[in-house]
Each structure stands twice: as structure tokens, then as C-alpha cells.
């Protein structure tokens, strides 16, 4: 009997301890986890979120303004078009006690640039670096292949986390990998596709974070993730669908927080044949039909249907990315079905169906595709809508360039620089649109000029000019910048940063 009593008391005490420790743990419910903890080997956004809690980069975005600022660097000076002098932060230690210095920067990036695409998925992203010169322990020069105005953005790109060189080389020689960074958290345990637990880095160079432990859990099914939030098993969960908002908000202990992603939902129109699709002759090759499509879209209605989970935009360059402008962003664009009908009549359209492809991967994408198709049908175009799962869409339409008249997709820009958002308009990247003509040539010139323009103001103006032409004559009809929703327990004091990255160095739990 005594033994039973003692066991019960010990059990109650252990539950008490568990409860106490639970308050220092932040659990995050993710739809998927990283495939690797080595930053340059996994470029999924969700992976970058995890990596950024373990590693720091030389440059990062300000959490409130999303402007690029020195992070592990203290100063970055562009001394010539292709040369950047960088002063490094002193007294920063890696999780294993190694000192952060020029050797660490050199080893981290040369490890990628001297490797190959099949080893590091982000290899191409880093080929802009020609050489890294060590000036002293805390000063380096980075020489770029050509003038690189997107230098700050690229230095904060996927795989930018600086790794401990001594331990890194030792592990590499032994055929192993251990994530040793300078980030606010250090790895405790990683079970692939199950969970990652991280302990606080008490020597973090900014200040010791308040939350002692972060557990990232892979919960692929969204209803299960929501149930975990409702039972308070997880504190933060991503990807909350609108139908669950009221249920979460009515609990009193959890709430739904909307945030803007970098993704823009858009329509891409084929204007002519291309190398991979040389025999294409479709309805959208007629400029009047393309114009009619633009006037037939009612963005206001689309946003109502998706419960305002987006900001209307007629351009893919959205804030805070350089070159975004009020004349293209947060506006509905001209919705004029009568004008669209007249343009269709003038075009001599004979009723040939327009093939419209779309995947159903994003929040209410299928519904939006159906609305768009019905809007186009309403002005007299016959739409053959083909909605498919994202894998089929990517494998059968997008990558083999089998897109016909229209396809709908959502494209992001995790670089927060416009170069990637306009890349598909460059003359060598027009496989999916077959865009040509004087406007296309002007845009090509502007893209190539902006890619090496080291004056940010002039570069922004070039992108604004480029957007004007694309809106007027381009083969793209952006619809809205997408929002996403995050479920959060109220005991967590933490706001989603403007760049939408889950970095918990400043989170507090009550």
C-alpha cells in the first residue's frame, strides 16, 4: 500500500514538473519539416524557417520593416561594382564554442560554390560569388562575377546560414553532418518527418532568448494540426483554413493571425509559340483577347470569395520588395465586362475553347480558378478549365512547357528582390508565354539593365517602368498577393515578422 501511495505522490510531482517545464517550451505545428538541417541542401520556405533558428547569416531582414540589414556582419560596403568589403561581428560564438570569424564565412560559402548542383540544391544561387578574400579575422572581401545590385538579398538567400568551420570540416571528413551555427537555438534532437527539438543558445550574441526549448512537429493533416492547437499540444500552427477561424477564436486561449506571404496568384497567358511548343496556335495570341481577359477579371469579387485572404495587385512585385509601387499594388484594376465583350467581338473570336490549367495546391485555388473561368465565360470566352493536383500540374503542364492559352499559379519571391519576379519576361525565359514584339524587347532591355544597376533608386525606376509595360501588354494577369493564417496560443507573445519567417529569437511565453 505504501508503495502505491509513494508512486501516486511521485506521479503527481512528475506531472507538476512536466507542467512547469511545458511553460518554457514552444511547440510549433508544421505541415512538413526540413529534409536536412544543412541549409544549402533544402530550399523549402518551411525549412528556411527552421534553419534560421539555428543559424545566422551575414545579412538578414529587419523583422519590422523587412529592410536588409547587417546581421553577423556589422558593415557592408560596395567598394567597386564587383567588390564588397564586409566587417564581421566580433565576440560571436558558435554553438560548440568555436569563434565566428572570416574563416567561418569563407568555409561556409566555398563549401557550396566549389561543389555541384546535385549536392547542394541551392548551388546555382551562390554562383554569383567569384571569390572570398580574407583580409583579417573579422574582415573579408567578396568578389562577385558581375555587378550585383541584389547582393544583400542574395546574401540572405537560402543556405546563407554560417556554419562552424573546424567542426564542419571534421564532420565532413568523417562523412557526417551536424548543424552548428550561431543562431538563437541549438539542435537537441532531430527525427526526420517527426520532430526537431532545439534548446536555447544561452550565449546568443543578441541576448539569451526567453523560450528555453522549441519543438517543431510535423503534422501533415491540417485538421489534426488544428486539433493540436485546440488541445494546447502545440502553441503555434501554420496553414489554418478559414473554416476553422471561428472555432479557434472562440476558445478564448487561441487566436488566428493573418499574415502576408510573398506569393502572388496570377494568370499567365500564352501569346505565341516557343521552342518547346513550336506548333502552338491559340486564341490568346490575339492581343484583343488578352486585353479582354484583363478587363473581365473582377478582383473585388475574388477577394470576397476567398474571405479577403489577399491584397489585390496587378503586378507580381509587391511590398516590401524594391520596385513595388502604389499604381500596381492594393488596387483592383479596371473591371469592365462591356469593354471585354467589345474587344472579343472586334477580335473575331469564333468560339474556340481556351484551355485553362490550374493546380489546387493553395488556399481556395480551385474555387478561384472556377470563378475566373466563369468571369471569362460571362464575357463570351469559352473556357476549358482543367484543375489538377499540384504534382500533376508541375509534371505535366508547367515544367514540360505544355501550358496552352492560360494557366493559373501562385509564385513567391523569398529573395525580397524584384530580379526573380520578372525573370520569366527575359528573352531567354519566355518558354511558357512565347512573348515577343517591341514591348517584350523593351522589357528585356530593362531586366538586363536593372540586373547590373548598382543605383537602387534608378534600379527601382527601371522596375516601375518595366511593370507599366507588362501591365499594358504583358502576358501576365496578377490577381492578388496571398495571405496565410497562423493559429497561436495566447500565452505566446510573438508576432509574425513582416517577411513571414518563423524566427523565435524574440518570442516570450507567459
Amino acid at each position, binding site marked *: 500500500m505504501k508503495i502505491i501511495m509513494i508512486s501516486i505522490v511521485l506521479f503527481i510531482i512528475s506531472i507538476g514538473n512536466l507542467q512547469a517545464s511545458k511553460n518554457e517550451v514552444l511547440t510549433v505545428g508544421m505541415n512538413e519539416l526540413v529534409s536536412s538541417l544543412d541549409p544549402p541542401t533544402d530550399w523549402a520556405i518551411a525549412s528556411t524557417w527552421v534553419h534560421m533558428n539555428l543559424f545566422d547569416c551575414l545579412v538578414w531582414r529587419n523583422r519590422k520593416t523587412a529592410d536588409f540589414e547587417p546581421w553577423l556582419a556589422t558593415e557592408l560596403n560596395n567598394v567597386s561594382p564587383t567588390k564588397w568589403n564586409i566587417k564581421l561581428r566580433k565576440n560571436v560564438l558558435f554553438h560548440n564554442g568555436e569563434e565566428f570569424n572570416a574563416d567561418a564565412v569563407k568555409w561556409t560559402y566555398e563549401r557550396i560554390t566549389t561543389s555541384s548542383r546535385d549536392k547542394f540544391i541551392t548551388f546555382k544561387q551562390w554562383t554569383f560569388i567569384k571569390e572570398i578574400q580574407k583580409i583579417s579575422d573579422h574582415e573579408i572581401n567578396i568578389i562577385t562575377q558581375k555587378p550585383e545590385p541584389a547582393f544583400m538579398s542574395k546574401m540572405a538567400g537560402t543556405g546563407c546560414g554560417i556554419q562552424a568551420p573546424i567542426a564542419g570540416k571534421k564532420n565532413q571528413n568523417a562523412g557526417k553532418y551536424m548543424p552548428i551555427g550561431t543562431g538563437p537555438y541549438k539542435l537537441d534532437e532531430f527525427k526526420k518527418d517527426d520532430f526537431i527539438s532545439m534548446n536555447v543558445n544561452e550565449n546568443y550574441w543578441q541576448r539569451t532568448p526567453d523560450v528555453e526549448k522549441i519543438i517543431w512537429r510535423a503534422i501533415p493533416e491540417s485538421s*489534426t494540426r488544428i*486539433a493540436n492547437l485546440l488541445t494546447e499540444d502545440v502553441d503555434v500552427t501554420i496553414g489554418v483554413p478559414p473554416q476553422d477561424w471561428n472555432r479557434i477564436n472562440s476558445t478564448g486561449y487561441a487566436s488566428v493571425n493573418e499574415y502576408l506571404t510573398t506569393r502572388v496568384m496570377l494568370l499567365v497567358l500564352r501569346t505565341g509559340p516557343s521552342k518547346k511548343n513550336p506548333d502552338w496556335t491559340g486564341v490568346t495570341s490575339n492581343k484583343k483577347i488578352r486585353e479582354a481577359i484583363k478587363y473581365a477579371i473582377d478582383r473585388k469579387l475574388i477577394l470576397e470569395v476567398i474571405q479577403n485572404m489577399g491584397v489585390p495587385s496587378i503586378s507580381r512585385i509587391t511590398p516590401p520588395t524594391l520596385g513595388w509601387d502604389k499604381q500596381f499594388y492594393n488596387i483592383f484594376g479596371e473591371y469592365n465586362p462591356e469593354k471585354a465583350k467589345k474587344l472579343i467581338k472586334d477580335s473575331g473570336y469564333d468560339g474556340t475553347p481556351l484551355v485553362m490549367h490550374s493546380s489546387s495546391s493553395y488556399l481556395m485555388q480551385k474555387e478561384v480558378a472556377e470563378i475566373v473561368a466563369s468571369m471569362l465565360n460571362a464575357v463570351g470566352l469559352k473556357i476549358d478549365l482543367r484543375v489538377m493536383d499540384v*504534382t*500533376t500540374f508541375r509534371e505535366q503542364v*508547367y515544367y514540360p512547357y505544355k501550358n496552352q492559352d492560360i494557366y493559373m499559379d501562385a509564385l513567391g519571391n523569398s529573395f525580397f528582390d524584384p530580379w526573380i519576379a520578372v525573370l520569366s519576361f527575359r528573352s531567354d*525565359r519566355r*518558354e511558357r508565354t512565347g512573348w515577343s514584339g517591341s514591348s517584350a524587347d523593351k522589357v528585356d532591355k530593362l531586366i538586363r539593365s536593372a540586373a547590373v544597376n548598382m543605383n537602387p533608386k534608378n534600379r527601382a525606376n527601371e522596375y516601375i517602368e518595366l511593370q507599366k509595360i507588362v501591365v499594358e501588354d504583358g502576358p501576365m494577369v496578377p490577381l492578388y498577393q496571398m495571405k496565410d493564417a497562423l493559429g497561436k496560443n495566447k500565452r505566446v507573445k510573438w508576432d509574425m515578422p513582416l517577411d513571414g519567417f518563423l524566427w523565435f529569437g524574440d518570442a516570450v511565453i507567459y
Partner: protein
Amino acid sequence: MIKYLAYRLLQLIPPLFGLTIILFVLLRVGGDPIYHLVDPEASAEEIEEVRKAYGFDKPLLVQYMNQMEMIFTGNFGKSFRFKTEAMPLIIERLPATIELALFSILVALIIAIPAGCLSAIYQNSILDLFVTIFSTIGRAMPNFWIGIMLIFFFSVVFRILPVSGRLEATSIILPAITLGTSIATTMARILRSSMIEVIRKEYIVTAKSKGLSKFKIIRSHILRNSLIAVTTVFGLQFAWILGGSVIVEEVFAWPGMGRLILKSVQLRDYSVVQAGVFIFAIIVMFTNLTVDMIYAYLDPRIRYK
């Protein structure tokens, strides 16, 4: 017996060989993994460059021969996604899936044996009707729906069991019930029919006339003789459990092989799919072999040569 076992083991080779061909063809027809290894802005040239780097530009026959060469040395190749060998990834997940399968079987037996016995003994009674209705509903309900309902009641409303994962000892309960219930319904029906057939046999009348207790007759004569049919079904259902675990693991975020294979199929991670299906096939084949061995124990007239 040893000779028979060796013969049966040798018999496993041709199906496994056939499986490698079927898998190879299905995976190649199903899609192109390269599209999951490049970013949406990649140019046609970049895509071809990556295809070459991974060896997918080679003729299919060459790719198949390379794959077979690796399999014969016990190497299924590297996972594109995890950049590590595929087989250790599968082996790492195997315990979770086996654990789920065993607990599901336990749940199935706990439900099916009493339900099947009572239903047969009290044939055409209210109890029998109840078991029949339960079996029909159990078979008709999809696994994922049962799972979501169990989560809603036991985790969200009553808060007595964890929602998902494999972090606590009690985490196994809901996934095992989800997977076990649907097998239990089939097993209960089979056991019922089998027992009804045995109850009518002459040796049961003899046992009764000898004055044996009802419990002893059921345990030693009816149940044991009915188990051959149940064992056969069990062998078939075990393969079903492994297949069903894919969905259940997804719903309950159970870190097993099923979830890994599902994600790998979506991302065309060939090596992992091949290694996973290979292991599944071996487990199913060995289960069938074990079932055959159990026949001999249950029915001493059966002898293997």
C-alpha cells in the same frame, strides 16, 4: 520441415524480382523526379543539367540495370529528398509501423474474438444483430474519417488522449483503434460464420454428450477449429494493415514507413519508394509463410513436405 521452409524462401525470389520491374515502370510512368529538384523559375537548360547530374538522361534499360546492380549489393540508392541512403531511412521508420500494426492487430483481436464468438453462439439474437450492424458500419467507414472523429471526441472534447505524434506512450491508442476497428469487423464476421459451421459438426454433439462444460467445448473444440479461417483472413488483413497505415500515419502524424512512402511517392523519391515497398513486400510474404506454419499447429492433419 526445414527443406520446406528453404523451398518457400526460394519461392520469394521471383515475386520480389517481378516487383522491382513493376515498381521501376510504374514510378517512371508516374512522373519525373527532376521537376521536384528545380525551382519554378528554372530554365529548360537548367532542368536538363539537373537531369544529367542525377543520371536520368540515360536510357531506361541502363537505369534499370544500374538499379538492379545496387539492389543486389543491398543498396537502394540515395534519397533525393534526404540526401542519405534510402534503406536506413526505411529501417529507421520500421519500428513505428510494426508497433502500429501489432497494436492494431491486438485491438482487432480484442474486438473480433468476443464479438465473433458471442455472435455465433447467440445466433439470430439481438446481440448477433448488434455485431452485424457494428461490422457493417465498421467496414463502411473510411479510416481517415474514423481517425478524425476519434481525435475530435477523445482528444479535443474529453482531452484524455494525445491528438497525434509518437511522443507519449498513450499516442498509439487512437491510431491503433482506427486501424484495428476495420480489421476487427471483417475478422468478427469470418469467425462467426466459421464457428456456426463448426457448431453443427458431429464431434461437437459428441463433446456435449460427454458432458464437457460449455466453456471447454467453445474453447477447445469450436474456437480452435474455427481459427483456420480466421488465420487465413488474418494473413490477408495484415497486408491491408500495412496499406492502411499510410492513411492512418498521415492523419495521426505517426512517424512510420507509410507516411514516408506516401511523401516519397508524391515527390517521386524513387529510391525510398523502392526500398519501402520492398520491405513491405518482404513483411507480407513472411506473414503468409508464418500463417502457413500456423495452419500446421492449428490442424495437426496438415503436414508440410
